[in-house]
């Protein structure tokens, strides 16, 4: 499952990967004609819509690929870099760059590509870019506060617009195809003799457009991988057909007190609840994080018993089934949830005699366990918290 950084590809090797991907990037940009400022500027004057065609096709291709790879579980879309939004600075910067595009005829990537084939104007553009960054840094105190204002974090556009990912993907593909058609008509009016689009083969282009729209329609109906899996495991017919392995609070307490190595406690409650009471050596993992790669090395060891701890058995069962569906084995849930554990083991008035001749032993065990576990919990509070920090890949410019 991608991405391969940082698990399979080290930071050093990643730089070589960057170089190779950059070569492909530069080659395609140059082949597309992005090394020509007149061609780039043409998009604003109607005589050449190459930029729009290349740019939009690339955007919907990459977007479609990310959606498909994510859907089939080949790419962990939770860890890939999503550009954070600083709303007002982003718009202001875009306005400045828009003016720069008209004045300069390039954008940074295309200017480097054009400079590589000997365009002197592109070399001046790159030089100007260096001076621009320097000026920005030099005057930074003037707008330091503005620079970090309206920070909205790594928000996604479909959430911002209040629609599903699939519907948004469909709309953007339709917008792109419509833009391709309209700009071709405009281009042919502006330059009725030599507009680049006269060379296109209509049939092939219509077929490609139809394919893109069909893909967009599929996106509307493509369920979210995670949502679909959660829906599946919470369905009554599924839960009825799949019994769960339950572990009693006493057994769990015994294993904790015994410092058993072959057990992993997975606490799926919220971070707040976990901070309030955490069982010794337990991992706090939110349900949505079970899907990620972070825990594979822990969960996939078969000899380890993975005990799911939640507020109640319903919450525990969902996580249990998800882990099972994700291919992990040797699982159990805590019978009665953490409430039962707290009541039977951790509270001093826990023991209610049942009249059995084991009563005295049970009482003695639980009291011993209570003291030991409470001490372990108290000790753990002085140590660093044992949660794996969710990886986030660094990116951006």
């Amino acid at each position, binding site marked *: 499952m991608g991405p391969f950084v940082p698990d399979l590809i080290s930071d050093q090797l990643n730089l070589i990967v960057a170089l190779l991907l950059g070569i492909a990037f530069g080659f395609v940009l140059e082949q597309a004609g992005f090394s020509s400022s007149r061609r780039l500027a043409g998009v604003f004057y109607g005589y050449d819509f190459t930029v729009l065609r290349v740019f939009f096709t690339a955007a919907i291709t990459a977007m479609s690929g990310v959606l498909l790879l994510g859907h089939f579980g080949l790419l962990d879309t939770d860890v890939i870099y999503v550009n954070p939004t*600083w709303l007002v600075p982003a718009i202001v910067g875009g306005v400045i760059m828009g003016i720069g595009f008209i004045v300069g005829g390039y954008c940074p990537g295309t200017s480097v590509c054009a400079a590589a084939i000997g365009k002197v104007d592109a070399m001046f553009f790159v030089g100007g870019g260096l001076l621009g960054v320097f000026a920005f840094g030099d005057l*930074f105190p003037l707008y330091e506060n503005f620079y970090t204002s309206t920070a909205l974090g790594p928000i996604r556009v479909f959430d911002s617009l209040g629609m599903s990912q699939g519907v948004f993907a469909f709309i953007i593909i339709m917008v792109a195809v419509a833009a391709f058609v309209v700009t071709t008509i405009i281009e042919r009016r502006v330059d009725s003799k030599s507009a680049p689009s006269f060379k296109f083969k209509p049939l092939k282009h219509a077929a490609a457009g139809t394919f893109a729209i069909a893909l967009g329609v599929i996106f509307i109906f493509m369920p979210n991988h995670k949502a679909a899996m959660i829906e599946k495991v919470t369905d009554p017919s599924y839960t009825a057909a799949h019994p769960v392995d339950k572990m009693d609070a006493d057994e769990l307490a015994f294993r904790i007190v015994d410092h058993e190595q072959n057990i992993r406690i997975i606490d799926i409650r919220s971070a707040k609840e976990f901070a309030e009471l955490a069982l010794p050596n337990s991992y706090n993992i939110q349900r949505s994080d079970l899907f990620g790669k972070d825990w594979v090395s822990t969960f996939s060891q078969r000899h380890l018993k993975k005990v799911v701890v939640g507020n109640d058995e319903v919450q525990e069962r969902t996580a249990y089934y998800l882990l099972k569906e994700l291919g992990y084995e040797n699982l159990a849930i805590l019978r009665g949830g953490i409430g039962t554990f707290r009541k039977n083991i951790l509270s001093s008035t826990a023991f209610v005699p049942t009249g059995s001749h084991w009563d005295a032993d049970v009482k003695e065990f639980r009291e011993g366990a209570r003291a030991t576990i409470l001490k372990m919990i108290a000790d753990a509070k002085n140590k660093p918290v044992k949660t794996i920090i969710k990886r986030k890949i660094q990116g951006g410019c």
Partner: protein
Amino acid sequence: MKTKYMNPYLAGFFLGLVLLATIFITGRGLGASGAIKDATISISNAIAPRFTETNPFFGQYVGAGKENPLKSWLVFEIAGVLIGGFISGLVSDRLKLVTEAGPRVKPRARWFFAAIGGALFGIGAQFTRGCTSGAALSGMAVLSTAGFIAMLSIFGTGYLVAYLGRKLWI
């Protein structure tokens, strides 16, 4: 003889695949302005280290315990763009030292305007946290709100001011 450019949709498809491969392998997108920033900081640090380290913007990237800004993912990627662009120019016979300008613009004026345009991109890309590649294209591929804002504001402004700049190009 100069070879024709690739069909733009096909080129866009390949560009999309390169971007997709980048996201799939590295988890991040392509970029360009970040490399120019790294280069600027590196040059500034070589000439005036005290100034660079104490500057609140550049200071984030240099100083004790920080890697050389040139040892960044984007710098290597942009080095690749130079190589890839050169190879493409070589195979398509487009390598030539030339200044390209609109029909009414003289080369020196073109150089001046290109530098101004580059400077504007250098400034704007800091506010937007990326340019057409890193913010708009890569951001759109992962459906980030920032990506669409960057795309709309860059191209929207381009169209708004195109009339004022028409003498540069037509």
